[in-house]
């Protein structure tokens, strides 16, 4: 058991490419921290540096109180689970799990006992004498876990351990790994590109982009109060709607947001809780609206709170049963920053093209999570009710959240 500390850890490759820049993270003893980000963001590099598979070119990495920058992997008291499991194909499950103990010259009785215990924990007993080639994907995943837990290490490192499983098994193994980590209370660093996995598993989630840490926070904080537009656009499904508006200060001292020709009155408490916002009066600001802050104004809202309205045209409706995702085009400038462009391009190039086109004519698409009773159809005009107390604000230039005194 130990904490892990990244202290301004940097990775510069020989060709000058910066993989990780000044990463500082404190991972508490027993915590499950998820490193998440789009591919190429450096999350795997960070994990491999912790494992000792990648040289650290700057800063300090501590496991417990020890600086481990120059320790080989075997002396770091860590265990790693690889994306493709990396099971030894010529060894039985028993030999796979016991390999590390055997190399550590653990006495045979103890070795067998510990392997049996790990196998029991992971329900692998019937397959102890099988070769990895005879196992299903989920079983191989368990063997990989077994290989890690049998050593009782100070830290687990997991590199996208579920990405090779099919969707249903992934959800099941997600729960299993979470429970296992909970009961073993071993410090764990878990790397994934899947934000759902990150939000559901992590005690805290660290979002990385281009080798830089964007935000590290518990999942609910990350979701509710993203530090910048990248985190806002990356977390949650659907991700946060980001549109450009202008902050106006009324003669009575109240503030409102202008989206095109429409106006949303901001509750005074919201403005009060963000002292920095006042400085934006009369200036453009990025407004972040979560899909659940929007609903059909024609249906009575179940949640109480200050509400404003915005009118738009329904582009598309996706009925999911318990809710309806409705894409509504409104008159407002969409936010097309590099972050947004990058993230959209990951899924589909045509999305980027559409965003640019919309930006040119000043129309933005909002994704709203409607009550299933809503009867709106594609092409219709709809009035959206907006929970104004749930709005987020970001600086147009820096993309940073507007919060404290500016």
């Amino acid at each position: 058991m130990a904490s892990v500390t990244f202290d301004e850890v940097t990775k510069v490759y020989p060709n000058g490419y910066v993989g990780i820049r000044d990463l500082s993270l404190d991972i508490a003893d027993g915590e499950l921290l998820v490193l998440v980000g789009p591919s190429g963001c450096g999350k795997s590099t960070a994990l491999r540096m912790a494992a000792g598979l990648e040289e650290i070119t700057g800063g300090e990495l501590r496991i417990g109180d020890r600086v481990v920058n120059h320790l080989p992997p075997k002396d770091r008291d860590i265990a790693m689970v690889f994306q493709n499991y990396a099971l030894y194909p010529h060894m039985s499950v028993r030999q796979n799990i016991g390999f590390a103990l055997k190399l550590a010259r653990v006495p045979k009785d103890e070795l067998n006992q510990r392997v049996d215990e790990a196998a029991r924990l992971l329900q692998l007993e019937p397959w102890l004498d099988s070769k990895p080639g005879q196992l299903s994907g989920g079983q191989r995943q368990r063997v990989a876990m077994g290989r890690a837990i049998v050593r009782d290490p100070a830290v687990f490192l997991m590199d996208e351990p579920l990405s090779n499983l099919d969707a249903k098994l992934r959800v099941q193994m997600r729960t299993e790994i979470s429970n296992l980590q909970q009961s073993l209370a071993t410090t764990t660093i878990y790397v994934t590109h899947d934000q759902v996995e990150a939000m559901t598993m992590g005690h805290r989630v660290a979002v990385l982009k281009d080798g830089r840490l964007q935000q590290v926070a518990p999942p609910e904080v990350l979701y509710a109060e993203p530090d910048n537009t990248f985190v806002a656009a990356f977390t949650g499904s659907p991700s946060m709607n980001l549109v450009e508006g202008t902050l106006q200060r009324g003669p009575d001292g109240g503030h409102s947001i202008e989206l095109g020709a429409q106006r949303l009155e901001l509750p005074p408490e919201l403005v009060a809780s963000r002292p920095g916002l006042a400085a934006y009066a009369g200036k453009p600001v990025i407004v972040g609206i979560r899909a659940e802050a929007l609903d059909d104004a024609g249906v009575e809202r179940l949640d109480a709170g200050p509400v404003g309205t915005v009118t738009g045209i329904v582009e598309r409706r996706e009925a999911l049963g318990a809710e309806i995702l409705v894409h509504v085009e409104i008159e407002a400038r969409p936010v097309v920053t590099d972050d947004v462009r990058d993230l959209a391009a990951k899924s589909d190039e045509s999305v980027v093209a559409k965003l640019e086109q919309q930006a040119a004519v000043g129309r933005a698409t909002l994704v709203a999570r409607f009550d299933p009773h809503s009867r709106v159809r594609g092409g219709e005009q709809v009035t959206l009710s907006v929970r104004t107390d749930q709005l987020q604000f970001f600086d147009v230039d820096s993309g940073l959240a507007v919060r404290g005194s500016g």
Partner: protein
Amino acid sequence: MTATTSTTPSSPSGNAAQPSAPRRTRRGLYGVLSAVPTGVLWFLVALWSLPTMGMLVSSFREERAVKRTGWWTVVTDPQLTLDNYRAVFSTQGTDAPDLWQHFWNSVAITVPATIIPIAFAAFAAYAFAWMEFPGRRTLFVVVVGLLVVPLQLSLVPLLQLYTGGAHLTVFGETLTLFPDLDLNGTPTAVWLTHIAFGLPLAIFLLHNYFAALPKDLIEAARIDGADHLTIFWRMVLPLSVPALAAFAIFQFLWVWNDYLVAVTFVGGARDNAPLTVRLASLSGGRGQDWHLLTAAAFVSIALPLAVFFSLQRYFVRGLLAGSVKG
């Protein structure tokens, strides 16, 4: 037959049966056509094995029969004898073929010339594939570049090296680079040469195989606490058996069948001559003794055949199945 099936509306899915009729014809034609490559292959196999078959059969026929009729007459007149084999193994007389001795000479040359390069090359290939050290790429390129050194060109220098050693005189001081071991005429000279010429290819082949092993496996072993030697013995070698076996077969066949190197270094010493050299001198001295030559030739191919069939399963087995998901 196709006609009957298409016109019989007996099945409840009669509609579906009708369009299936022409398909069945096509399948029949396809069946015939798909058998063609197999047939051609069998024909080629037969054609290629025929001379060996003829040799094998002739080696069991009497001298008179071999000289008068073709080997295929055994089909009508099967008279077989082991006399030829007794003759080639005999040790009587001044110029007795005495193939047993030469057989063992061949073994004494081939075994070290096969095992030693594999042992050396496996270590070298592992280092080139998985260890970081300065100049790794350059060194590897140089080693692989040695593949182009022609054997014929180095025969005379090697002969000098084995009989006189190598000495370098600098500023009046004579440095001995290679001592005079008087190896000429010994099997050692032959297998040393084969090792030297086998190593570049062995390192090249094994390196390519080792380097293609999944990186995660090696890293997982490192995290499990394995050092380079452990990874080499317990991961890389067991997973590379197909490559090791493949190279072993090639090197074995090449050395066993080699004539040039053997005749250069032990050609003068008949007692140390391997089978190939002895066989050549037999066909020179006893060119008219067809029946003996066939038996002797078959003795020389017997071991390579046995080696090939005992190791060939390693070509087929995929040892990597199930290690990582593709």
